Structure formats: structure tokens, C-alpha cells
């Protein structure tokens, strides 16, 4: 197994962990952490695959991903705070007035 293969499998593992966290964890903040893990799996891929290529496309794109992740976290935490202010909970399962209203 070469270095690149190993790092690729690592990124697949990271991505799957992130996805698993998103689907199993209850708290919105933990879901946000899972999403960060998925984004970082992609970053790892980009940087590793860049070693086979000329130029710095992959690494630069990874910088963009980091930037976007920061913005996402800021907006996300602001929204979750607002939800917490109204519901006194950040667990999406307990925050479900819209569906009940519909029944």
C-alpha cells in the first residue's frame, strides 16, 4: 500500500465517520462537528491528490474549503443559538413544532 492509497483510505474513513455522526448524534452542535469532519476528509483528499499533479490547484481549493467551513460554522452557531433561545434545547428532534402543527 502506497502512501497515497493509505491517506485516501483514511479520508474515506473520516468521511464515513462524519456521515455516521450526522445521522446518529442528536445535538445540533455535534452534527456540526460531524460536518466539519466530512469537510476535512475532503481537504485531506485534495492535498494528497495534489502531490500527483503539477500546480497547486488542490491545495488552493482546500484553502477555499477551510474558508467556507468557517463561514458555515459562524452562521450555523448563530442559528443554533437562536433556536436554543426559543426552545431551550438544541436537539433537532425536540425542535419540531412545524410538523405537529400540520397534523
Amino acid at each position, binding site marked *: 500500500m502506497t502512501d497515497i492509497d493509505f491517506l485516501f483510505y483514511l479520508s474515506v474513513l473520516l468521511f464515513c465517520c462524519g456521515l455516521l455522526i450526522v445521522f446518529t448524534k442528536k445535538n445540533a452542535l455535534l452534527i456540526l462537528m460531524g460536518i466539519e469532519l466530512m469537510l476535512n476528509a475532503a481537504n485531506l*483528499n485534495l492535498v494528497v491528490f495534489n502531490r500527483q499533479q503539477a500546480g497547486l*490547484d488542490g491545495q488552493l481549493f482546500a484553502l477555499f474549503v477551510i474558508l467556507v467551513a468557517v463561514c*458555515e460554522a459562524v452562521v450555523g452557531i448563530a442559528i443554533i443559538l437562536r433556536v436554543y433561545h*426559543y426552545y431551550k434545547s438544541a436537539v433537532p428532534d425536540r425542535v419540531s413544532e412545524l410538523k405537529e402543527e*400540520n397534523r
Partner: protein
Amino acid sequence: MNQPVSMIPDLLQIIPEVLLAGSVCLTLLLGLFVKKNRSVLLAVVAATVFIVAGIYILTSWPHKPEEIFAGTLRVDDFSAFFRVLFLAGGLLTLFISLQKENATEYVILIQAIVLGACLLSMSMHFATVLVSLELVSLCSYILAGFAFNKPSSEGSMKYFLMGTVATACLVYGISLIYGISGTLNFSSSQFVDALMQSKSVMIAVAALLILAALLFKLAAVPFHLWAPDVYQSAPTPVVAFLSVVPKLAGLALLIKIVLAFNLFGRATVDWRMLVAGISIVSILAGNLSALAQTNPKRMLAYSSIAQAGFLLAGVATLDPTGIQAALFYAVVFLLMNLLAFTALHLFEKWKSLPAMADFAGLGRVAFIPAFALTMALVALTGLPPTAGFTAKLFLFSSLWASWSDSGSTIMLILFIAGLLNTVIALYFYLKIPYYLFLKETPPGTASIKISITGNFLLLILVIAVTWLFLNPGLLMGWINRITFVL
């Protein structure tokens, strides 16, 4: 590459976007310093910028396809068409209602979403795709919570959580594609060559991950779950905007990505089958769920999921005729959805109407909005005398042509499913007109005062929707001249 390149010639190619970015900054400054009549002033400034940018794009039609900023963006007729649509969507949204609270932020967010959508329709490189898609998404999450109440915060959070997962999938898909092809520019020959030669299963996985993010923006099944909650809880003008601009931005990118990944029909994934399948499921799921709804905004949410299915049906043909039909459908969809939500908003300003039964007899006390709402719903069903009929006619005839050309059964199934669903749609779309005009007005209902601007906007939209029915040739003539060469 090593010499410093002047950015001025490239910037001159995207003057509308430069204007929009400048006006975001200007809005921020005006919001800080102007205290009197702030919301009116900001709306007027933003509307002027939208109009100037739109006229600039229209006057420079037709565009010579040209790649700018080292091949990351491309100015051509296809993107110009969508940019005019987004600018029109933004402009009409500003006219629907004047945001009194947090006017500065509201106008900035609207402008930023339009800017992101414009850049997205020009993107030819995954870096610009990611940045402009996120500009649209992040601003949409905030706008979804703009009612500043309990349900709206919930809708906003659900939208955010599902949206970021979709983005994470997109980024991972892009990283896989980068590993396979070694390029992030999806219009380059290197990209096509590498994908043609590679037999890796990873291409299919990556393409599906990227597709997932786009379907989320389109609110197509199976990534539609956010739509009903957001539509129900967000303020109506915001819903009108979110149901049109981000959705069509997703469509613009989806057309480009699907054509790029299709590799002129030599891809390992059967894209026609895949997109047609999603389209059928979206139409069915949207319409069948809409049948059970009592809240009008939730019903329109499911209806817009079904409409996303119809937009995808045009793309599924993968030939110019089908995509042209989808573009025509996109214009009509913008008009009829904005019309429906504007009329709904004018009713809601008078009184909160959480159920369709609350509309009983209101057609007699407020004729103009009731008539406009009826026209919008008739158009969404796809009946004459509205442009909704024309759009569906173009779409179905392109599906029929695609079936008789290629003989693929899925096109025939899509054709039949679409026709059947128009019948199902009839039932739930005409529920509101039934309450409006055929039920008795509850005693003691005062007549509704609708502002002149509201009536004027409704009138313009109604005229546009009928005019496109009577005279679709002009618009279709423009669309026919758009080329889809990657």
C-alpha cells in the same frame, strides 16, 4: 502564468456582478448612516442596481462565449439568460413588500444571493462553484429565519443542517473528481479525457455526491425534506424569493454539470435514466404529499418540489430541445411562483390565514388578489389561458420527441407520469380557488384594502403570465439561440 495579469479586462466582462458587489457595500454604508426612510431608500437603491445590471446584460446580447479569470468563469448566452432571470427575481421580491425591521440586512442578503446565483450560472471551475454556491446557501439560511419567531428559527436550523451536509458531500465529491482527473475545471478537455479513460467506480460515487448537493438546492426528492418547514415558517416574500432564485441557480449548474459528466453519452452512469428517475419521483412525491396539506404555504412547498421534477424532466432528455423547454419552464415558473406568493402575502398582510378553509368567500371582498392567486394556481397546474400550459406543452413535446428519437422507455414513462400528475395536481391547486369563489363569505368580513403597489405588481405578473401564453414565440426565439457547448 507567471507574469502578473491585469484583471481589468476580465472585470469589464462582469460589470453587472461588480455593480452588485459594490451595491452590497453601499447598502451597508447607507444602512449605517441613513435613519429616515431607510427601508424605502435601500429598496430603491437595490432595485435601481438590479434594473441597470439587467439592462446591461440584455443590451450586450448575444454574448460571444468568452472564458475569463483563467477559465473559472464563462460569459455566454446561457449564463446571461439565467443572470437576467435572477436579477428579475430579486427585483420583484423587493417590490412584494417593504421590510421594515432589519431592512439593511434584508436588502444585503437579497443582493448577495442574486450575486451568488449570477456567479454560479457562469462558473466553469469547482472553486467558483463552491464559493458562489455557499454565498447563495449561507444567505438563504439566514433569510429563512427572518420572521424572528419560534417556528422560523426552527425552519432555518433544519435548512442549515441539511444544507451543510449537502455542501460537505459536494466538496468530497469534488475532491474525488480532482483525484481522478487532476483538474478542477469541468469544462476543460483534460477533465473530459481523464473521465473517458478512467474506468473507476469512483466517478459514479463522486458524480452522485455532487448531484446530491444540486438536488438539495433544487429541492428535488430525496433532498426535499427542508422545503415544507422552511416555506411554512419563513416570511412569505422571503419564501417567494427562496423558491425561485436558489432553485433556478441550482438548475443552471445542474444542466452544466450533467452535460459535463455525461461525456457525450459515453459515461458509465446512465444519466438520462438517473435524472429521469429523480424527476418522476419528485413529481409524484411532491404532488401526492401536496394532496394532504391544509396550510397553503406548505401546499405550495410540495407543489414546488413537483415543479422541480418538471424542470428536471427537461434536463433528462439531455438534448438541446429538452433543455430549451426547461429554460422556458424556468421563466414561467419564476413568474407564476412569484405571483402565487405575492397574492398570498397580500392576503396574509390583512389577516393570518393558516388553513385553506380560511380563504372561504374572500374572492368577493378582495377580487384582484383572489383573481391573481387563481391565475397563479391555474398556471402551476398547467392549464390555459396561462403560460403554465405553454411551458408544459413545450416540455411534453420535447419528451415525446426524445422518446421517438432515442426509443428509451424511461422518456415515455416520464411523459405519462407527467401527464397523469397534471390531473392529480388539478385537485389540490384548485382547492384554494374553490374556497375563494364558491364558498359563502363568513358574516362580518370587512373588505380588504390592498395597497396600490401590491395591485400593480399582481397586475404586471398576471399580464406577463397570460402574454407568454398568447405569444411564446419571442421568448422561445431567444432561448433557441442559446447554445449548450461545454
